[in-house]
């Protein structure tokens, strides 16, 4: 790891000012679980590392029936996993965060750090996307809000601009009954990255699908929303055949890579199967059996 200076600003304002002063050679550190590995591998060699740990009230998790859920970007995976509001209003998030790596890493890694790393293999982004998350990006002159699905640009590249810090994740209120499913498919052990990850939410009236969100991780350069697959089901009368068609459509929207977790072909085939299973599970959760 190269040598660097290390600063711990005690306000967001101070952190943004530091980023402005060091446009090319500073990096933000939150939990450190990704950044330190990259620095040790000398993939990133910042001259200045700015820690967000001393910024007060940066890890809040607040729920309001009208406003929904607001998560401070500094919240650790473990805090989100265990937050009572998350358990009761967003069981999909609870289920997802408890599958990220293992408890020790969940004690360290933050949700903001996870999203800003832009790693398509990680789990939280897909479930947050399936719940219509938007992120707030703050800079010294103000802030902007962006739908999470627009935030991921390419492998490890996000829409975060120089001088910006991701500060908050917002989810709209949870509308019940909401069918949901999270599948983290790993042929190796659970704490590994997924071979294919599927996050799905849907609402149905009688046997008609009113709305659906489907997001996938580990199968493209970014975590992505499979909109064409969603459209197969949205507004339609749900049938086994249609679920199958949705899986097949999703498989045409992904662009997986051969690696030690499986060949691209295998991953694409698993997308077909797992998307269908995720929809079936979501339907079961709202007691719509097919």
């Amino acid at each position, binding site marked *: 790891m190269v040598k660097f200076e290390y600063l*711990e600003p005690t306000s967001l304002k101070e952190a943004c000012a530091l980023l402005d002063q060091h446009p090319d050679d500073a990096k933000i550190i939150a939990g450190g*679980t990704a950044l*330190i*590995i990259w620095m040790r591998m000398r993939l990133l060699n910042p001259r200045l*590392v700015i820690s967000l740990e001393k910024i007060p009230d940066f890890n809040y998790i607040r729920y309001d029936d009208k406003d929904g859920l607001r998560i401070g970007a500094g919240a650790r995976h473990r805090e989100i996993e265990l937050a009572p509001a998350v358990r009761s209003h967003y069981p999909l998030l609870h289920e997802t965060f408890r599958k990220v790596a293992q408890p020790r890493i969940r004690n*360290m890694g933050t949700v903001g750090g996870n999203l800003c790393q832009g790693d398509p293999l990680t789990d939280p982004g897909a479930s947050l996307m399936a719940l219509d998350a938007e992120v707030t990006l703050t800079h010294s002159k103000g802030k902007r809000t962006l739908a999470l699905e627009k935030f991921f640009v390419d492998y490890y590249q996000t829409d975060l601009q120089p001088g910006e810090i991701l500060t908050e994740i917002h989810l709209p209120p949870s509308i019940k009954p909401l069918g949901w499913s999270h599948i983290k498919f790993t042929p190796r052990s659970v704490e590994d990255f997924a071979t294919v990850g599927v996050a799905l939410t849907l609402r149905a009236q009688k046997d008609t699908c009113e709305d659906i969100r489907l997001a996938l991780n580990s199968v493209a350069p970014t975590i992505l929303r499979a909109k064409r697959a969603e459209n197969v089901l949205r507004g339609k009368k749900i049938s086994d055949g249609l679920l199958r068609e949705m899986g097949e459509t999703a498989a045409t929207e992904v662009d997986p890579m051969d690696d030690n977790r499986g060949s691209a072909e295998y991953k694409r085939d698993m997308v077909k199967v797992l998307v269908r299973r995720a929809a079936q599970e979501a339907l079961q959760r709202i007691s719509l059996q097919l």
Partner: protein
Amino acid sequence: MKRFVALKVNGEEYDIDIEPNRLLLHALREDVGLTGTKEGCSIGVCGACSVIVDGKLVSSCLTLALACQGKEITTIEGLAKDGRLHPLQQAFLEYGGFQCGVCTPGQIMAAKALLDANPNPTEEEVKEWMSGNLCRCTGYYKILEAVMAAAHNKISSDFQVKHERKTAKIQSLNVYKDS
């Protein structure tokens, strides 16, 4: 540029002079001089470097030492008190929870963090919690057994006494002279 840092490890203050890029793992082993914490994978996966910082289990290989100023750090060396082993240490000995021992400090620190928060875990909870601590020799069953034994106080009360007698006996043979 080096910075002067006070680290509080196992209740004692250590003043060390370190570069900001110094990892907690290396600060503990090389600057503080406590080598019980081990380095395995260096990327947060194996758990050999597990320590407890302000009550939370973390990988010291992914933690900057500077970020730990003012925090309470507990390492494997902080567990035995007044010559008495911590129940977890005794359980690992009694139940054969290790072979080569390189993963053991991390296993025990992970188990300690769990039992501190949840003194009565189920086997499933122990398995899930310990999934980030890899062991390449023991087979996980004996580790699980040791943790459950410590949790349910199934460790023998005279272990320490017998152990001390055994050690005293060996020493009385005078084979290894203490200089």
